[in-house]
């Protein structure tokens, strides 16, 4: 039995990808989650993984080929069928007797088959809400948006019944109809395309999402003291960054505020099934990506830190994975030690909230009636007022603050 490995969709704005490298070769055994290939998208080179145990079969496209999402890229043999069992002479499948359904699925794992019958796919992280309605857009607008790496969802349509037309894409990218985007160099981030993608997404967000903004000062003294003491005992590669604590505190606090963790689907809220924190990561020279740190609420701090380092490293080197780009359920943006007091983020659609952390600094703080210098960070929340209210948002920020008072419980 062979299946087809198809060009994965890494986001609603991705329509095609270019194969840069086959990481695995025909005959290689692949475990679920193994990277099989690297593909080029407008967001850079991305490692794509398999979602089932399998044996790499015949490649169907070549390095350099650009194919639409859903196009077959390679055959995958079922992992349970050892390669040795395959006929050595390679009898074409079409000459074999037509297998009945039961035989045809014999190699498929039972759990997967049941899941398929139930209409679900294992490993598919998206929620169970109804599929988003296809965005109305002219063919020309679709093509240009694809070339410019912009999600149609991120563009306000001025055409009939809100359809996105060419002019909207040009407006979103700040280009004129006569300038054509040069195709991005392979294997590298196309910063221009990313700039346009950010512009488009943020423009749409500001147009469509009624943001509300909350700000809350949090005393980080306990957390930084705990961190300093802990890191002092550890070699550099085991040390934690404050950012890891902040992410964990946010992730843990979301359990009581599910309305902040999920997606807007045509005005309806769809709660996420897990907490996948989009970690806003700046790219030197400009640009920003917020890949997902999966199941951040479930990770122990050392693991979370390791994952975070890995993630940031791959942002910089252009090796993000498919699921990391498409999966964030909420974004955390931390300016670190070289920023400003506070930042108010813009929600990344279709998410409904973004948490911001300014630069921690010693500030005067009243404690037990005394003004004392404490290490203070200003946390902010920008959230979608269609799906949550300020009161709930305030409670959420307060909870994040409380979590950070007990760093050893994070």
């Amino acid at each position, binding site marked *: 039995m062979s299946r087809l490995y198809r060009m994965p969709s890494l986001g609603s704005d991705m329509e095609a990808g270019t194969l840069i490298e086959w990481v695995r070769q025909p005959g290689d055994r692949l475990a679920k989650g193994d990277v099989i290939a690297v593909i080029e998208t407008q967001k850079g080179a991305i490692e794509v993984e398999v979602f089932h145990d399998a044996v790499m079969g015949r490649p169907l496209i070549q390095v350099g080929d650009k194919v639409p999402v859903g196009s077959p890229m390679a055959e995958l043999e079922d992992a349970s069928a050892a390669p040795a069992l395959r006929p050595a002479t390679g009898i074409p499948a079409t000459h074999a007797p037509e297998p009945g359904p039961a035989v045809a699925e014999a190699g498929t794992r039972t759990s997967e088959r049941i899941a398929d019958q139930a209409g679900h796919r294992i490993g598919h992280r998206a929620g169970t809400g109804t599929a988003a309605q296809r965005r109305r857009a002219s063919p020309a607008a679709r093509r240009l948006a694809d070339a410019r790496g912009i999600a149609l969802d991120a563009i306000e349509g001025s055409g009939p019944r809100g359809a996105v037309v060419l002019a909207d894409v040009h407006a979103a990218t700040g280009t004129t109809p006569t300038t054509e985007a040069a195709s991005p160099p392979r294997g590298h981030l196309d910063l221009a395309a990313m700039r346009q993608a950010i512009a488009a997404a943020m423009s749409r967000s500001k147009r469509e999402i009624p943001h509300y903004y909350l700000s809350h000062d949090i005393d980080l003294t306990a957390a930084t003291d705990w961190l*300093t003491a802990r*890191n*002092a005992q550890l*070699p*550099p*590669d085991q*040390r934690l*960054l*404050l*950012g890891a604590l902040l992410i964990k505190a946010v992730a843990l606090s979301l359990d009581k505020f599910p309305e902040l963790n999920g997606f807007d689907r045509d005005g309806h809220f769809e709660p996420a099934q897990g907490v996948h924190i989009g970690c806003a990561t*700046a*790219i*030197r*020279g400009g640009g920003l990506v917020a890949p997902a740190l999966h199941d951040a609420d479930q990770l122990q701090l050392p693991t979370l830190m390791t994952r*975070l*380092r890995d993630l*940031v*490293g791959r942002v*910089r*080197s252009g090796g993000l994975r498919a699921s990391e780009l498409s999966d964030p359920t909420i974004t955390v943006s931390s300016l*670190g*030690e*070289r920023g400003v007091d506070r930042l108010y983020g813009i929600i990344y659609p279709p998410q409904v909230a973004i948490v911001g952390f300014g630069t921690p600094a010693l500030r005067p703080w009243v404690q037990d009636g005394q003004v004392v210098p404490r290490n203070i960070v200003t946390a902010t929340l920008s959230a979608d007022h269609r799906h949550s209210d300020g009161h709930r948002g305030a409670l959420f920020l307060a909870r994040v603050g409380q979590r950070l008072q007990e760093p050893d419980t994070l």
Partner: protein
Amino acid sequence: MTRDEIKTIALQELIGVAADLAGETIPGDAQLRDEFDLDSMDILNWVSALHKRLGVDIPELDYPRLVSLDATADYLLERL
């Protein structure tokens, strides 16, 4: 190991953790955080790499001393 050798290693490891700086000319006195946009993650990765390469432990409290390649070379020379 001379200061220049140490400085070369520091640069190599910096490029190792921030590959996107590979094409840059980084003067010895350049302020790495401000001029080359190194953040805390980069510093941590760099410190880890230097630790591995040179066996020098760099406590967190000393991170502020690693402001430039020259300063880092001086610091490491002290610690070796």
